[in-house]
């Protein structure tokens, strides 16, 4: 039960039950869908970019606790950050949940509460659940006029038709 408790910490269960920044963002200027066809997880992320900076971000999605909590925690973590900062944070987060960066992630200052998802690294088949919203976020930022988040969007994420190509 130890690794499970590590995976399903109370913060994650709380964000699963009551996700933050949940719902459409009417004045968004970028959005993207993320889909995991294997398990049916789906997420849509909206961003309102103010120049390079994320003025607001919201999401909607049905899926497992990991994907929902990850999206919820992500929205809190990235609000107010620049696209470049988000790119760096996303890379770091990815490295932690895939176990490429060894925890003591819990005291990792750059991750903050996102570190509660580090337990995912013990469950390789669940990594995609934790990173789905992040891929959608990058695609959403790329879809906003004039902005792009460094890094790559995974297959399965799609920007709306007509969006400027990301890098």
């Amino acid at each position: 039960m130890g690794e499970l408790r590590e995976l399903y910490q109370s913060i994650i269960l709380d964000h699963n039950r009551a996700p933050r920044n949940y719902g459409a963002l009417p004045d968004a200027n970028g959005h993207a869908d993320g889909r995991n066809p294997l398990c049916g997880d789906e997420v849509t992320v909206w961003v309102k970019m103010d120049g390079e900076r994320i003025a607001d971000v919201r999401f909607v999605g049905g899926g497992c606790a990991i994907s929902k909590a990850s999206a919820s925690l992500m929205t809190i973590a990235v609000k107010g950050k620049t696209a470049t900062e988000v790119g760096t944070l996303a890379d770091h987060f990815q490295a932690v949940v895939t176990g490429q960066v060894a925890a003591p992630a819990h005291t990792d200052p750059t991750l903050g509460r996102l570190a509660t998802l580090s337990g995912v690294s013990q469950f390789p088949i669940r990594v995609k659940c934790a990173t789905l919203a992040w891929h959608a976020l990058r695609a959403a930022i790329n879809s906003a006029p004039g902005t792009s988040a460094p890094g790559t969007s995974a297959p399965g994420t799609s920007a709306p038709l007509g969006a400027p190509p990301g890098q």
Partner: protein
Amino acid sequence: MSHRADFPLLVRQPTLRYLDSAATAQKPAIVLDAVREFYETSYANPHRGAYALSGRATECYHDARSRVARFFGLRDAACLIFTRGTTESLNLVATAWGTHNIQRGDEIVVTRLEHHANFVPWQQLALARGAAFRIVELTPDGQVDLDHLRRVVTSRTKVVAVAHVSNALGTITPLAEIASVARAVGALVVVDGAQSAPHMAVDVDTLDIDFYAFSGHKMGAPTGIGGLIGRRAILETMSPYQMGGDMIELVGDDRTSWNVLPHKFEAGTPNVGGAVGLAAAAGYLTSIGMAEVRRHEQALTAVATERLASIPGVHVYGPDAAHRSGVVSFTVDGIHAHDLATILDQDGVCIRAGHHCAQPLLRRLGVGATARASFFVYNDRTDVDALVAGVRSAQALFHGAAA
């Protein structure tokens, strides 16, 4: 009685609770031995070599076909075409029969239960040919709504494609009734037997159907082998599905004539090792007896559905045990199936979570994903106990409820 001792993987992992046989079955030693024996004594390219070893391989292949045909009650073994499995078999029919027989304005009928393998090929055929694609809906307990079927099937219906057993709900469909509705309008009946072949006696000669597709890997055979059983009169009018070696009679510079059944539909070097394994799997199931397989799984299913349904917050989908194969699909309030599968996996309980390649069905059920436990000959009550205990501990973890 459980036959766990016959399955080396389960013997080596005594604490494993394998409840995902609807996805694929574990392999009995008798199958693994038969495949090994074939490769060690009789392996060469069949049909081609002018030497005794190739003759032996050819014999093994033919013998495997006869034995598998017998398992399905098929007297004319040449009407059994070996394929990679159900998916390839259904695509074969939709392509080789469908493209020549479906015209604009025709109708293709499937049911809401179908696996994507018996849904997408027909949907795409309909789109390509300008035909209508109609879906027969279900009753609230997940059975084919025969009244709706009778309304949907018309004189324009050219094919009715239906699962014998649903992989997502376990529903056993009433093939005789469905076939008689289709027959009345002269429509072809194509049956997806992926989930019936391993779990109940199937006697194709007594079913009034035109095609029956199945996968060996769900029956205890290796992956990559399965079959399509078809009516001879229809198979003979059909053009080949793939072209190449073995399926030809005479290749001229300008034209080619086709080999006889079943070779016309088996282009390229066949999967002889797979066929040998499939015959051994069929023999293994016959030695237990398909009636006994069904009885064993039905008993486990009845216990599992009853015990799961009695847990507050757990919802079981699909019909009662009499109309259900060994598949139990369920959801738990507040716990996504994916999380449930991870939690159960920590106790060695393997279940499937997701849409089970049946998105049209899950959309209709109004759930994004279900958890699915499925049984085979190696399961017993202790597996059900572990499943039920795992669901309770997941609830405790998520809701802090008393386990």
